[in-house]
Every structure is written in structure tokens, then in C-alpha cells.
């Protein structure tokens, strides 16, 4: 797989690596030494596959959206990650990493969350597996994703509000990493996206790869072909996109489209479109593109969608962008809201605001009528009802 070609260990092309303080060296090194063996061990696979099927509810449908297909004049298929237990793709990763943490003998899980979907997924698996759970969440996100905060509390997680910086995902990640530094021996950091120091981007991508694995065989069953013409997914850190792209990266016939959050517009100063305006640097222990000023200070991003409100991007995407293997578009807050409304009214599915960015890209692409287009519907919109109601005037 091209995804595994590394010019040195832990890198995708020139991106990735582990830029971490010495205190974390042992933990990161321990994880790096064990994760591949654990992931490929028969007992892990058996338990992981069983939980994905019976607990998460996989495989998720690859739904042929007929009304959307008619409108966009191509076969539009929705990969229904929104139908997973807890409402998004995040649970695929949380289940896998929690099983890994148990095998490393850890008793306490630390997580960061933006939209709250990763926090909810982590709190859920911690309840299931009897692990202590601390979730860091920016104060801004706590306010705009209130239902998820309540869910996490009900599941027994301790929510730690973060007041530094923009009080959103970037700052929650800093605090989660600091907690890990202060509790290296008993705690496992369960990161929610394909970001952070190696091996996390690789680990999370492998756990999300189930998305493209299913797309492959579902296409074979339904359309007698194993690859689509397009895969479209939204990108904050980029975990659902990494999972949806994973098994198609080596197949040059599949167009891979990532959709960033443009916020108020990519040149408005209020954006989270990292690849559009960012430069390579270091964020959260990883060399990748990030939104920063000339002095290297990381700038506060903006997106209406808390899950995409991140000033960096996974190194896998950095490399797919640099090598032009994937194309990266962006959608504004406004366009995402419209796309969400359109899916709701045409297909009867209320998407998460994150996923609505992927849907918004359909307008920007020219399809042939025989094209098969898979859109990763990464999550459901229950958590965003307040935002929808405020913006759409009900």
C-alpha cells in the first residue's frame, strides 16, 4: 500500500513523525512497538470484528440516494456512518483503541473532543469496558454541542472544560496531551483523528479503514465493480476521509475528494481550510500543514462545524495533497447548511454539519451520468439541531 511507504519510519512522504517532549517518549515508543502486532493478532481481530458487528452495528449501508442521484446526474451512494452506534464513524476507532489500551494494561482513558462525537464514542467504550474516562472539550464546543456533553456525562465520563486559546478542538488536544504527560503510567491517550505523533495517524487510519473495506465489497455486490469513480469525505483532522480513502489510495482510477471547512470563506480570516491556506509545520507532535502566522503561531480556525474546527490536518492527507493523489475542496458554513437542508428534504436524512461539507462538494464537481460517487456520511445531525434551528429559521 502506498499509505505505508515511508521515507523514514513514521512518515507519509515528508509529513508525520513524532515531535514530542521526552516525557512522552516511552509511551509513544511502547505504542509504536506493539500496535501492529496487536492489530494483527487473531484474538484482537476476533474481539474487534465482533464488537463492530454486534455492538456498533456494522456493516453500515451503502445507500443509493435516488433523489440526489437524479439531481446530480450520477449514481450517488451514501456510506451511512451516521447509522453506527453513537451516531458517527468515531466509534470504529474508539472500540479498536480501547481494546488496545486494555492490552497495554491501562486503566484510564484520556480523549479530546470537538463536536463531541469522539468524546461520546470514547465514553461509550469506556462504559462498556469498565475504564475510567476523562474527556477534554473546549468551552466553546461545550456550549455549541450541549446534547453530546450530557450524553458523555450520563455515560460516566469526566468532562474537563478547556478555557485556553480558542477554547475548541486544538486547545482540547493540547490539554489532553498534557494530561497524558502527567499520567504516563496508568493512562492511555485515545486520540480521535488521524493526527498527533506517529503511530497515531497510522493506527487511526487502520481502524477507520473498515469504511472503505465495506465500500469495496458492497459495490461488488450491488454494482459488480469493486471501486467507485469518486469518494468524497469531509476533513477536519481527516479520520473519516482516511477510512473512506484507505483501500482506494493505490487505485488511480478512483478520484479522492476531501472537503475542508472554509468557514466564512478561505480568505476571510475565519476558516478551517488548512490545505487552502496553511503551511507545513508542527502541530500536536506531527509535521503537517497547519494554519499559522509568519512567526509560526498557530492561528485559531473557524468553522460552524465543531468537528472540522481544527487548524491542522492528518499527515496522510498532507501527503495526498502534496503528491496530488487526492483533490481537496472546501465548503463554507453557508454551503454546508444548505447541503444539510437539501439532504434532509430530499432523502429524509439529517446529516451532521461535518458530513454536510462533503455533500456540499457535489455542487462543485462535474459528473458523467455513469459515474458512481460515494459520499461518506460521517455522522448524524442530532447534535447539530440547535445550530440548524438557529440558522434555518424554524
Amino acid at each position, binding site marked *: 500500500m502506498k499509505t505505508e511507504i515511508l521515507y*523514514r519510519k513514521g512518515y507519509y512522504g515528508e509529513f508525520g*513523525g*513524532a*515531535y*514530542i*517532549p*521526552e*516525557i512522552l*517518549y*516511552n509511551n509513544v*515508543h511502547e505504542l509504536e512497538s506493539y500496535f501492529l502486532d496487536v492489530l494483527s493478532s487473531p484474538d484482537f481481530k476476533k474481539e474487534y470484528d465482533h464488537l463492530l458487528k454486534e455492538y456498533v452495528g456494522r456493516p453500515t449501508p451503502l445507500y443509493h440516494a435516488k433523489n440526489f442521484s437524479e439531481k446530480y446526474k450520477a449514481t450517488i451512494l451514501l456510506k451511512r456512518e451516521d447509522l453506527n452506534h453513537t451516531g458517527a464513524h468515531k466509534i470504529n476507532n474508539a472500540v479498536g483503541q480501547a481494546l488496545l489500551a486494555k492490552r497495554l494494561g491501562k486503566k484510564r482513558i484520556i480523549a479530546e473532543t470537538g463536536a463531541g462525537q469522539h468524546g461520546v464514542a470514547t465514553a461509550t467504550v469506556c462504559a462498556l469496558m469498565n475504564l475510567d474516562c476523562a474527556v477534554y472539550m473546549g468551552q466553546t464546543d461545550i456550549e455549541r454541542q450541549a446534547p453530546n456533553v450530557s450524553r458523555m456525562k450520563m455515560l460516566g465520563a469526566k468532562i474537563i472544560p478547556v478555557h*485556553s*486559546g480558542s477554547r475548541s478542538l*486544538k486547545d482540547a488536544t*493540547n490539554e489532553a*496531551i*498534557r494530561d497524558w*504527560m*502527567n499520567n*504516563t*503510567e496508568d493512562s492511555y491517550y485515545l486520540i480521535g483523528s488521524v493526527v498527533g505523533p506517529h503511530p497515531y495517524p497510522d493506527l487511526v487510519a487502520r481502524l477507520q479503514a473498515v469504511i472503505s473495506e465495506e465500500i469495496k465489497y458492497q459495490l461488488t455486490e450491488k454494482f459488480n465493480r469493486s471501486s467507485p469513480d469518486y469518494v468524497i469525505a469531509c476533513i477536519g483532522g481527516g479520520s473519516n476521509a482516511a477510512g473512506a480513502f484507505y483501500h482506494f489510495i493505490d487505485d488511480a482510477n478512483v478520484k479522492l475528494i476531501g472537503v475542508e471547512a472554509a468557514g466564512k470563506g478561505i480568505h476571510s480570516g475565519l476558516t478551517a481550510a488548512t490545505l487552502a491556506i496553511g*503551511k*507545513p*509545520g*508542527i*502541530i*500536536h*507532535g506531527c509535521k503537517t500543514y497547519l494554519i*499559522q502566522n*509568519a*512567526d*509560526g*503561531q*498557530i492561528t485559531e480556525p473557524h468553522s460552524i462545524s465543531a468537528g472540522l474546527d481544527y487548524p491542522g490536518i492528518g499527515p496522510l492527507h498532507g501527503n495526498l495533497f502534496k503528491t496530488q493523489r487526492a483533490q481537496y475542496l472546501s465548503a463554507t458554513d453557508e454551503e454546508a447548511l444548505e447541503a444539510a437542508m437539501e439532504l434532509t428534504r430530499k432523502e429524509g436524512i439529517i446529516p451532521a454539519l461535518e458530513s454536510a461539507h462533503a455533500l456540499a462538494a457535489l455542487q462543485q464537481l462535474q459528473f458523467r451520468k455513469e459515474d458512481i460517487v460515494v459520499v461518506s456520511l460521517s455522522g448524524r445531525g442530532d447534535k447539530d439541531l440547535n445550530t440548524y434551528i438557529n440558522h434555518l429559521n424554524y
Partner: protein
Amino acid sequence: MNNRIEKLFQNKDRDIISIFFTAGYPNYNDTLEIVEALDSAGTDLMEIGIPFSDPLADGKTIQESSSKAIANGMTLSNLFDQLITLRKKTQKPVILMGYLNSVLQYGIEAFYAKCHECGIDGVILPDLPIEEYEMEHKHLAEKFNVIVVFLLSPLSQHNRVEQVKKAAKGFVYLVSSNSTTGNEIKNSHQLEEVIPRFNLNLPVLIGFGIKDKASFETACKAGNGAIIGSEFIRRIGQSENIKSTTEQFINELKHQS
């Protein structure tokens, strides 16, 4: 080439006081005033922090001083403008400490060249991997006579210690406990065990969690001295007079119990 850090350890091998502070804090123009105050108060070594928006290894005090310094207008390039007259203020060794992203955006070669021009003797970048140091920094640091200092923690294992020993120069920065800056030292006895186990060929300064005479003495019993950051920053953050606050703080470390 002689480096002031190496010279310091040739002349003194115990009770070394190294003070860390954030450039541009509490006020933009305080950087050199603090250098002068530390010099006359009898500090052996100074570490000037390059403010960064996302200082992962730092606790609240240094985080807040960093944000304030950035809000005051401090940047790496402005800091170098201030430091151009550094050697008129002190002849003691001075180290710049910060995060790798600041250096990458400034330009690696330009950074070491400017350090040399200002008379900076060493650099500490806690998130710089040793492999990357060897590929992209070492030849430039050597060319410009700047020592890159590496860190170890009490949990560092044999292979890691050997890797650091090979790359390290000047001294080794031993993190007192597994935590971010500004927390209490958890196990002081651990320090006395780890230093002999590491069998280092360089002096050791102990940092993170040193804040008063008692913790300073604990550190000095185990290593060659200590690095104090958060507590000093807290003091000058509340200070009316940098010079007298600094003198009093160093005095407390040395004498008063």
C-alpha cells in the same frame, strides 16, 4: 571554538542555578532587563523562552506568560532584534528554549546564524527528535557554535539514554518527574537513583518542579544544579521592580531557608 556553556561547567560543577523566563513577559521590553537582573543576582545560566501559541510541555504559568508575550507583540524575529545587544548586558551563557515550529518558520539555518550573531550559546527544543537534529540541525548548530541540549526523564530506558548520550553536548536536561512544567517533584529519591544509572558523560541540570530552596537542594544533591522557570515567572509577573524581585528570588534559593 569555546562555548560559554562548556566553560561554565569547566569552572563550576555544583549548585548551578539556571533561570528560565519567557521573552517579552510581563512587558515587551522586559527581556534584556531580566537578563541584566539575573546576571547581577548571580545566576549561572539563563534560558530565554520563545513564546509559542501551543506549548505542549508547559503547565499553566508558562502557557499564560507565552500568550501574554505573544499579545505584547513578541515574535522570534523581534526577540532577535532585542538580543542583538545581549552581550553588552551579560557574559554568562544564554540559551534559547522554544518549540520546533518557531524555528522551522524562521528557517533553520537563519535561526542558528542569528543565534551566533546575538551570542546565544545553546538551544533547547523539547519537541525536536534526535534523528531530525542529526539530519537537519547538527551541522548548522556546529557551524554557528550553538549547543543543542537534550532532555531525559526518570523513565528513559537504556536505549534512549544511549541515543541521547551520543547526541548531547554541554549538559543533559533531566526532567524531574513525569509531568508538564510547574508541577511538584513527585519522587526526589528517584532522581538520585536514575543519574548513576544513566552513567552520563556530561553534567546534569534538573528541571520541572523546582521552585524554592528545598527543591533546589534536592535537585543539587542529585545533579549539578537546577533549572527554575514557572516560579520565577510567577514572581516577576507580579513584580513592581524586576531587579529587586530577581535578587530576592535568587537570594532565597541560595541562602534563606
